[in-house]
């Protein structure tokens, strides 16, 4: 049962992990993007369509990233250039994403898909227990897992990462160095949107092999809250995304085993898990928040 739950956690959590890592960049720069949900949907549909029409799943994923980035650019323009409220704009961008994808996705509902296949990693996938959990997935899942440490390196060990963090913590320092916090925030927001788009692509072309209207059903919002759970740390984001997805796998397992607990309660378990852990950790996490973010609220 543990192996099944953990395998399910990784398989189902990948589409959330990408936007969590992406939104970590965005928030580190001082922008909150609730349009992440919309970017995921845009990525899911675009990857689905481009994957079918071009015959290449990789081209599909790339197009998904571009579509997610495009919606994030709308968010960035509204809040950074036009000075609109971040929360309200993010929600509007999400609804824009839901509406546009519903419209353009109509012809693709129930259509065949060009899908990513599982690529078991030789030798490693044969290791008992660990093998099936970590090393028998589609390529995007491996990329998602690597993206955590990679994002950590970029954020904390590169000049670009330093500028992103400076934009979020002390934008005036950037200005003193003759750089524009706005430009960095544009970059970080668009990067976040592109990763959300890849997450959507994984959802539609690797995990569910399906396009249907509003198919993310709130996962983008979950991703935004997991960023806070992970204390804006891309390494902890991996734990957050897989914990949430693992809780889903666990509640399904409990149902399948005939546990005499209300299914409605079981279905709330993933959300409750996140809330409980956040409540337990938030006391220690307060100082981790990028300074500029507090101005959003």
């Amino acid at each position, binding site marked *: 049962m543990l192996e099944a739950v953990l*395998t*399910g956690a990784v*398989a*189902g959590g990948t*589409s959330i992990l990408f936007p969590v890592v992406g939104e970590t960049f965005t928030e580190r720069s001082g922008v909150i993007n*609730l349009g992440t*949900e919309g970017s995921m949907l845009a990525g899911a549909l675009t990857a689905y369509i481009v994957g079918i029409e071009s015959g290449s799943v990789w081209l599909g994923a790339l197009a998904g990233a571009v579509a997610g980035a495009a919606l994030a650019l709308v968010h960035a323009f509204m809040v950074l250039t036009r000075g609109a409220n971040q929360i309200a704009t993010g929600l509007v961008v999400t*609804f824009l994403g*839901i509406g546009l994808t*519903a*419209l353009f996705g*109509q*012809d693709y*509902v*129930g259509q065949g*898909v060009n899908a990513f296949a599982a690529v078991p990693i030789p030798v490693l996938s044969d290791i008992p227990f660990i093998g099936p959990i970590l090393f028998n997935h589609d390529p995007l899942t491996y990329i998602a897992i690597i993206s955590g440490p990679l994002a950590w390196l970029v954020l904390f060990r590169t000049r670009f990462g330093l500028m992103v963090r400076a934009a979020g913590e002390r934008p005036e320092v950037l200005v003193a160095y003759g750089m524009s916090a706005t430009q960095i925030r544009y970059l970080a927001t668009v990067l976040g949107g592109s990763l959300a788009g890849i997450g959507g692509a994984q*959802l*539609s072309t690797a*995990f*569910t*092999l*399906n396009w*249907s*209207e*509003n*198919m*993310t*059903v*709130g*996962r983008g*919002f*979950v991703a935004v*809250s997991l960023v*806070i*759970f992970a204390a804006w740390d891309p390494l902890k984001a991996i734990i957050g995304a897989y914990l949430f*997805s693992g809780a*889903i*796998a666990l509640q*399904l*397992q409990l*149902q*399948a*085993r*005939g*546990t005499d*607990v*209300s*299914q409605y309660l079981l*279905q709330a378990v993933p*959300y409750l898990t*996140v*809330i409980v852990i*956040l*409540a337990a950790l*938030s006391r220690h*996490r*307060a100082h981790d*928040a990028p300074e500029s973010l*507090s101005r959003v*609220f």
Partner: protein
Amino acid sequence: MKIRRTRAAVVPALLALALVAAACGSDDDTGGDTSAPADSTAPGATAAEGGSAAPASTGAVDTVGFIFVGPKDDFGYNQAAYAGSEAVKSAFGDLTVLQAENVPETAESEAVMQDMIDKGADLIFATSFGHLEFAENLAAKNPDVVFVHQGGLETEPKLDNMGTYFGTVYEPVYTAGIAAGQVSKTGKLGYVYAFPIPQTLANINAFTLGAQSVNPDIETIAVSTGSWCDPALQAQAAQTLIDEGADVITQHQDCTKTIVEAAEAAGVYSVGYHADASALAPTGWITGSEWDWTALYTDIVQTLIDGKFAASPYNGDYRVGLQTGDNPFIQSAFGKMVTPETIALIDAAKESFTAGGSPFTGPVVNQDGDTVWAEGETPTYADIEQMDFFVNGVTGSTS
């Protein structure tokens, strides 16, 4: 200090948003595409299957409206209802047919239907479960307009211009269960469903009883997703059932593709629902059930045109199954693994339903071992629509 407190408030708010988004389902595109199609006099290519002879004279009835909760091409429930409305269009040449997709199960549906009334609708088909109370509200206010609702049960007071209709969905699900019971090697069937409402419980029970009729030891594992369409949860649910040893996977969901694909990829069998998805599972497709509303929709329209609605069974809670006529819920094509002997058993079951039997003819025993319907007892359609239990052999919770 201040930062921490505000953040503590933000996170539950985000999660609440996620839950709301999850609950909203496909309701977000609330525009409601109400359009009077220009091609309402389309060639009657499908008129013949309408069950009514040639384009009929429409007399005083000149406009019929249909509202659908989802998109017309969802590869499932709404697509089937939409196809039914198109069949009405073809069968009645000079009838104006109004169609509105993505009409949520909220007061918005009342506004969309009111709009149809303003455009002259004489009859409105409200085709989703949650449209009922809004259709009833309007029926009370508009005695000259007839409302028929798909799948619900009328509440008091019953009106002369209101009715409900539905197929007995569990009949082809029972016969699909016979095929599943024959095909399964592990003796475990997996069922992904949305919510524990009578309709889903009846399907899960019928499927299980059908399978048990050929293999008494069959077990069905039922897992709910809490949603009519959440593909990621569906994928995880299907995997969970496969991990638990189920080698036939079926479902009661609105969007069906993910689960069929997941079963096929895992090398297990699938039984479809709402739509023929056999193309998605060339090796594992056993059978399924799908809607064909053509005959029923056209007959309801014809009844109104003939001025006989108030005296007809449609002015009430009309349920059509093999016992009373042509079930609009039909069996999909069988896969190659279904043997002629099994098909003979399925035909025999259908004959017994036509002769007055039911998938739930006793003995029917619930999960706790209590007898619900005794040996030889046949529940009515109304009894079945109140179903609130799982039969013996189902693993799952109804609460």
